[in-house]
């Protein structure tokens, strides 16, 4: 499925796999590891934290810090072992907090009390890091309220089956979760979107069902949602401009668990894609290092292999298997080093494959020439760089193996930086 078919003159056809692709139909639990790591992207310095090395923490304990969001949740019981200040490769600062796990979970009682009165405040106070969604609170606290919530029973990237598996396994629980969701968010209009084979299961949720063809890149939210609503989304604007919010099936389930069990959800379901492209869904504690998950599945890795958090088309590469999974990590993609195709610094030959493949109808051939030379503003103004929906198909089809998608994202990143600097300077 990763090769161009022998006869192929149109755009690439990348169909998602169905649930029968899973190596086992149920979710495999990953044992609690000895050490967990939590990344805080909105806290820059260790002194912003209310905790320090040696502080004991309980499972589900809310730990405050100075910065956007204002708190994070300890995923296990133990002691803070270390706090380190780091930078991402785009030079953004973040904190890594390592927790030494000690024995069985002791649940922090704070949320158990708060969950007695489920409402928007409780969600805002405790559920920002709901598994399966990058930022839950931004959906429920808005100046202009959303009119529809879209429950995503599809998975954005290829070979990811997390949401589909959960939608298939527990539609009744999702139904219960939807009730909590409308109470918490105040939005009654709910739409469940699933691939065609899950339609019958999804109907058990009682919500309005929409079927989406499981063809990449049309499962990416930026393409999926405007398509469902039949409303165009202006370039470079968030989905909330359409006054809809997207929340994954997994997050709805986690919400249900939170309010029925009265404990904060600290586990994440992850599709692990091995070197042979087989997929296993696992349930792991947030903060579990990738190494422990691969070890539990007996997937061996070696120097020079590739690991990405996310799917094969949009996942984020990591250089070490000590990296932890986060509350919004959907998948772990492992690639054997023999299958690693290195990018190349070759020039564009103008073959037009990327232009054919681009779902945003961009003149990728022109963009890559400008971006290679750092002409980011011109790329945005004259060639619509900001319309890019970030699917990665341009790199996927490039005959010259140019990292086109990387150039596109670099251009967007540089533009965002310049905009931020301009705002800062007045």
């Amino acid at each position, binding site marked *: 499925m990763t090769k161009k078919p022998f006869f192929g003159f149109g755009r690439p056809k990348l169909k998602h796999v169905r649930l029968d692709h899973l190596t086992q139909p149920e979710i495999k639990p990953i044992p609690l590891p000895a050490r967990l790591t939590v990344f805080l992207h909105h806290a820059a310095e260790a002194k912003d934290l209310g905790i320090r090395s040696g502080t004991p923490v309980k499972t589900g304990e809310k730990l405050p810090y100075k910065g956007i969001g204002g708190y994070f949740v300890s995923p296990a019981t133990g002691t803070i072992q270390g706090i380190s200040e780091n930078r991402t490769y785009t030079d953004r600062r973040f904190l890594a907090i390592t927790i030494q796990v000690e024995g069985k979970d002791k649940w922090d009682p704070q949320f158990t009390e708060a969950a007695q009165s489920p409402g928007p405040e409780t969600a805002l106070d405790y559920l920002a890091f709901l598994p399966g969604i990058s930022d839950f609170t931004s959906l429920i606290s808005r100046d202009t309220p959303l009119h529809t919530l879209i429950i995503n029973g599809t998975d954005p990237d290829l070979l990811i089956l997390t949401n589909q598996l959960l939608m298939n396994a527990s539609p009744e629980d999702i139904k219960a979760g939807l009730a909590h969701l409308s109470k918490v968010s105040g939005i009654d209009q709910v739409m469940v979107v699933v691939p065609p084979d899950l339609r019958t299961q999804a109907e058990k949720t009682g919500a309005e069902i929409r079927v989406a063809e499981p063809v990449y890149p049309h499962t990416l939210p930026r393409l999926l949602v405007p398509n469902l609503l039949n409303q165009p989304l202006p370039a470079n604007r968030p989905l909330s401009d359409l006054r809809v919010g997207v929340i994954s099936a997994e997050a709805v389930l986690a919400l249900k668990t939170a309010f029925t069990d009265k404990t904060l959800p600290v586990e994440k379901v992850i599709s692990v894609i091995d070197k042979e492209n087989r997929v296993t869904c696992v349930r792991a504690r947030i903060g579990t290092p990738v190494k422990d998950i691969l070890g539990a599945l007996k997937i061996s890795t070696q120097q020079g292999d590739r690991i990405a958090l996310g799917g094969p088309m949009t996942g984020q590469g990591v250089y070490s298997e000590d990296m932890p999974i986060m509350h919004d990590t959907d998948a772990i993609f492992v690639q054997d080093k023999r299958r690693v195709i290195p990018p*190349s*610094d*070759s020039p564009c030959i103008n073959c037009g494959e990327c232009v054919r493949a681009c779902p945003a109808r961009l003149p990728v051939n022109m963009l890559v020439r400008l971006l290679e030379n750092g002409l980011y503003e011109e790329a945005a103004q004259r060639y619509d760089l900001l319309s890019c929906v970030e699917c990665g198909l341009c790199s996927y089809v490039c005959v*010259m*193996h140019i990292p086109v998608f990387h150039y596109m994202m670099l251009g967007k990143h540089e533009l965002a930086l310049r905009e931020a600097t301009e705002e800062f300077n007045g």
Partner: protein
Amino acid sequence: MTSKTEQNIGYVLAGVLFIVGLLCYTVFAKNPPQEPLRIMFTSTGGKVFFDHKTHFSESGYAFECDMCHHMLEGEGEKPVSCGECHLEDGEDTPKRSDALHTQCIGCHEDSGSGPVDCSACHLR
């Protein structure tokens, strides 16, 4: 971008084809046939594309060589070049174009077939 194997294919392709080309141009070179098939006469009035084969071959008009070429050398095989006898600055030396015009058009008119108009022979 290109791998070592791909580059070697390039070298081998260039080397092998160079030898093939060299052989074709030397050993297997084709000599022009004894009796020309077609002749392109160059002239200021436009080139003339003359079908020699049709005039002499059995399937064509089956003319004998000496019907057109006088003065044949040896066993009447090889025509003598005009300049061998007619001196270039001789007084009664006809112009090449006149000679050819007379010969071609004369025969075409006599036999009542073949082109006689200028543009029927001269390419412009």
